[in-house]
């Protein structure tokens, strides 16, 4: 939708005394922002619309209820029974519990003020859990109200990040995945194979979508209490949560113990997803028999983890025949946990863990915090991942990845490739890097400005971009997440505006991303026939690694 139509809709919304979309999550051009500001100024000439007569009474009543509710729920307590401290319930409790047990302990403390009431309550409830056992159900409903159970999983998990997951129903029925911190394995019954994987980083999360439940609440634009409902016998408060990006969703939080009960997504592409626990119990520790690796009879072991644990760095250097830098000043609280050598890759990995008895800081600490320093012989030039931000270590280009799972910096210097990766914050990662190099460390953020401005600006239809983002979220057109591919398509269409038949006229390899702060990027096209030389890209709709890239302008290629 162009600015003319958007402005028209904006005026309609003001006239209808409704909050325009522009007053929320969307970002708009400076020009459009000025137009909406002017429209509001003009509307000041009109008489003000006051609320109806009942407003004062309603406001006072709502405030009294909300404030009293907040005050009365400052320190939620879990129901506890004697003995094993088990809470059992017949139905529903959702995955934020699991999320919390696995992820949230690392994130304590820094939530925004806006949403801190519910976030605080959930956080406090979760803090009291050591481990749990439950059944998670994932269901999908369509617009006709037909519901299909996508999968059911039995999970055992603790706050150290250890877990056992058995697929009870669904695509991988029968598969068992376990990570006990020392070894991660998956037993696939149908194949009769046992796969061994590295334990860290572990991208597998059985509650991945909800693993950041608390974080989502903290970061949400708005958290509105919209009512109360009984969910399978449990009284729950229903919240409507509008995330900073994405569609609003609803969260049912148990009135009594403040743990999330159920999460239901908004209807997207005529489908709605619900995730809930059909059963859960809280326990002190995970059963040892589930967490111990043993190859079942008739199974074949397939080891995907090439790492060989060694007793000393000297031994690792002997096996791999490389010399490594040993971080000299590691951040406080960290200690070397294990050393692994990978002979086939001439690589050594140093695993550091944060000890549990360190001073607890709200910013970064939890059991299971790990930083891995990998060093290997450099093979060719560093090729940063398409989703990475571009930083610098000394005079070398650095790949910077920052997501919910890990923070990672990879760079090359003097024939070696280094990677510091961990589930702690970026400052800790930088501290490790500082202990390995004297070079300046530059990690751009979204506030770091990109050099230059395009000679030619491209018209943007933000509504179309938003629709594309939704489509990408649903798994379509993943190339929109790759700034190089987006540049390739754009540059190719400049040459062939009628459409591309066969190969793209501009090859992928001819494009280099020279700057990328995670929100804006600059691509250089090294191809004589290209009309554009420098292409400017931006994540207009969502400013994280799930956000699509859009070309916002370009400079003409004068060398063609």
């Amino acid at each position, binding site marked *: 939708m162009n600015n003319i139509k958007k402005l028209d809709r904006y005026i309609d919304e003001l006239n209808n005394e409704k909050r325009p979309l522009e007053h929320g999550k969307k970002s708009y051009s400076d020009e459009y922002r000025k*137009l909406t500001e002017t429209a509001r100024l003009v*509307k000041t000439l009109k008489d003000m619309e006051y609320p109806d007569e009942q407003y004062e009474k309603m406001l006072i009543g709502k405030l009294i209820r909300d404030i009293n509710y907040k005050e009365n729920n400052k320190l939620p307590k879990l129901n506890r029974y004697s003995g094993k401290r088990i809470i059992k319930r017949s139905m529903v409790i959702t995955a934020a519990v699991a999320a919390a047990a696995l992820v949230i302990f690392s994130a304590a403390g820094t939530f925004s003020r806006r949403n801190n009431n519910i976030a605080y309550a959930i956080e406090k409830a979760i803090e009291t859990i050591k481990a749990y056992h439950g059944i998670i159900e994932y269901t999908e409903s369509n617009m006709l109200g037909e519901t299909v159970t996508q999968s059911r999983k039995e999970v055992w998990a603790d706050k150290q990040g250890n877990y056992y997951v058995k697929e009870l129903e669904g695509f991988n029925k029968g598969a068992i995945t376990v990570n006990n911190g020392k070894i991660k394995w998956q037993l696939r019954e149908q194949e009769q194979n046992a796969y061994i994987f590295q334990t860290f980083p572990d991208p597998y999360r059985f509650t991945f979508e909800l693993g950041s439940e608390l974080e989502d609440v903290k970061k949400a634009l708005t958290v509105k209490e919209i009512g109360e409902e009984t969910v399978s016998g449990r009284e729950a408060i229903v919240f409507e949560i509008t995330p900073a990006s994405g569609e609003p969703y609803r969260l049912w939080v148990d009135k009594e113990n403040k743990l999330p009960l159920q999460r239901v997504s908004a209807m997207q592409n005529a489908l709605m997803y619900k995730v809930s626990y059909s059963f859960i119990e809280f326990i002190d520790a995970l059963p040892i028999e589930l967490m111990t690796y043993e190859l079942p009879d008739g199974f074949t072991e397939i080891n995907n983890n090439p790492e060989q644990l060694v007793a000393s760095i000297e031994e690792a250097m002997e096996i791999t025949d490389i010399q490594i830098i040993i971080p000299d000043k590691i951040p406080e609280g960290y200690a070397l946990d294990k050393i692994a050598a990978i002979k086939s890759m001439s690589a050594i990995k140093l695993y550091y863990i944060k000890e549990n008895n360190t001073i607890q800081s709200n910013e970064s600490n939890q059991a299971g915090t790990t930083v891995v320093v990998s060093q290997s012989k450099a093979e060719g030039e560093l090729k940063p991942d398409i989703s990475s931000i571009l930083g610098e270590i000394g005079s070398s280009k650095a790949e910077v990845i920052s997501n919910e799972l890990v923070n990672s910096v990879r760079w090359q210097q003097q024939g070696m490739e280094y990677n510091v990766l961990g589930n702690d914050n970026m400052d800790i990662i930088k501290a490790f890097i500082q202990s390995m190099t004297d070079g300046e460390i530059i990690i751009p953020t979204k506030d770091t400005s990109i050099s230059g401005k395009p000679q030619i600006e491209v018209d943007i239809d933000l509504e179309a971009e938003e629709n594309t983002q939704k489509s990408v979220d649903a798994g379509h057109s993943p190339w929109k997440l790759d700034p190089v591919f987006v540049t390739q398509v754009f540059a190719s269409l400049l040459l062939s505006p009628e459409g591309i038949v066969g190969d793209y006229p501009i090859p992928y390899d001819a494009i280099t991303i020279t700057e990328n702060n995670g929100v804006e990027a600059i691509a250089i096209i090294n191809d004589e026939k290209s009309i554009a030389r420098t292409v400017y890209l931006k994540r207009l709709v969502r400013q994280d690694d799930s956000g699509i890239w859009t070309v916002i302008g370009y400079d003409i290629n004068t060398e063609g």
Partner: protein
Amino acid sequence: MCGFKNRDEFIEQLCTDTWVELYRFIYFKVQNREEAQDITQESYIRAITYLMNNDMTIHKMNSYLRTIALNIIRDRWRVQKRKGRSINIEDANDEILISEDFTDYVATRNTVAEAMEQLTKEQQTVINLRIIKGFSVEETARLMNKNKTAVRVMQYRALKQLEKIINS
């Protein structure tokens, strides 16, 4: 909260005394009732929570509430280009609010009205019908004997011109 029997009484009194002015301030910024009501409520929740947790007395309650409201608006609209910083609610006073934002309703309205006069007659008409009188595009088109597209383009150009005049 001294002088009140309990929290509920304090909340009731505070709202009764201040909501109209607070609502007016917010409405002036957002120009729609739905959002103004919503932000009014959120401002009180923040203010009262803060007062209770910090055991403090606020001398200028209206300024204090306006500051909170302003921060909420900025916070909500933060992805748009921002003009200012968040104001510490303990520093709230009228001078800050006046210096950082349009709070002088009359002056603002005069500025806009004068700027409107510099538009062409047709531009004035379209702005008057669409925004001040609140007619729909269809109604405006009929009244001006134009088609809807023409009305949309005219109002766009008129606002663009008005923005230039106001900011010049």
